[in-house]
Each structure stands twice: as C-alpha cells, then as structure tokens.
C-alpha cells in the first residue's frame, strides 16, 4: 500500500518561529501537494510540485514556501509562523497525469495539527 508519512501529528510553535513540515511518500509519485484544512473552509491548496526542484503556487501560498530536493520528500516551510497559520496541514501525492489514469487518485498523509501561539 502507498504510504504518505507526515513527520509530526501535532506541533506547537511560537509566533515568529521558522517551522518545517515534512512529508515523505514511498510510491515514486511525481506529484506532491500541501493543503491546509480549516473548519468550514474545506481543503485549500498551498503549493504543489510535479517534479524534483519544481514547485507551483496553489490558491493560498502567502506566508509559505516549499522545498523538493528529492522525489519522495516535499517540505512545507513557514518562514515566520503567525497565529493565523494555526491549522491542519495535509500532504498528498499522486502519479503524474496520464499514467494509471483509470485508477488515479490522491494519497493523503494523516495530517499535522499545527498550533501557533
């Protein structure tokens, strides 16, 4: 089974700290995504990557950056954490379009609940 692993289930940080959220997948997926989940707002895409060292902004990239140095790892960085970044962060991965398309889906990690105090 595909595994998408997020390094922390819960994280508490102080305002102004630099925060790293790590995500690793073990299925050689090209695509990786970072979402933010807030009550009543659903999932919002922060950043995604379709290849090593490639990144694309999603719908709410402000205050975030990402790094993809290796295919299996996609990191989300909060350069200076703020209280409005308190949220659940979900990582996901998938094959690039056209491959195994009939069975295509996103595979998700278990999420990191980040609290910024």
């Amino acid at each position, binding site marked *: 089974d595909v595994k998408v692993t997020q390094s922390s289930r819960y994280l508490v940080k102080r305002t102004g700290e630099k925060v790293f959220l790590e995500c690793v997948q073990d299925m050689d997926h090209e695509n990786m*995504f970072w979402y933010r989940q807030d009550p*009543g*707002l*659903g*999932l919002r*895409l922060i950043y*995604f990557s*379709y290849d090593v060292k490639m990144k694309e902004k*999603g719908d709410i990239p402000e205050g975030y950056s990402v790094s993809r140095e290796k295919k299996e790892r996609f990191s989300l960085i909060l350069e200076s954490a703020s209280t409005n970044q308190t949220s*659940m962060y*979900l990582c*996901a991965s*998938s*094959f*690039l*379009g*056209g491959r195994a*398309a009939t069975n*295509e*889906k*996103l595979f*998700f*990690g*278990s*999420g990191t609940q980040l609290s910024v105090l």
Partner: protein
Amino acid sequence: AQTVTQSQPEMSVQEAETVTLSCTYDTSENNYYLFWYKQPPSRQMILVIRQEAYKQQNATENRFSVNFQKAAKSFSLKISDSQLGDTAMYFCAFMKSFNRDDKIIFGKGTRLHILP
C-alpha cells in the same frame, strides 16, 4: 473557474439507515472526474468512490454509490446500511484532468455522524 458546493455542513443518521450527501459543481468542461473522499477521526483521507464524466453508469463501491446527474451538475453520495465506522467528514471533489496544470478542487465538506 470550477467550484464544488456541499450544501450540508453536518448530518446525523441512525445506524443501518441510508443517507445521501449532496454535491453540486460548476464547470464548462465536458470531460472531467468527480470524487468522494472520506476523512475519519484518524484524519487520513481515503478515496471512497470516483466517477468519470464520460461514463453514464453510476459508480458503486459496496455500500457506497453515487447519483451522477451530468446535466444538473450534481454528484450525490448514497451510503446504504450505514455503519458506525462511516462516521467521518466527507469531501466531494472535482478534477478536470490528470494533466500537470489541473488540480483537484474540494468542497467544504459534510460531517456525517452515524448514531448507534
């Protein structure tokens, strides 16, 4: 731009009952993909069911089935013989294609409680 709307923020049903979760979407595309994802209390989202727009037949997966009405842009999820383990947040999602530039778009979710 495509949008996905789930009009029921929260629902509760008794165990063994049938429940239907609503989803509507807006697109000008003719071919696309629709999904229902489940997020249980463990938080890991899993795919429940998917539908390709070019297929007229409604997708089914065991107790889960969809009512796909393309003209009405409606994609509801029916859960038959509901079980306590069905308690979860359910997200409807739309995707134009699996090409690099097309991203999946999620609705805001419906929280479903199955009562014993």
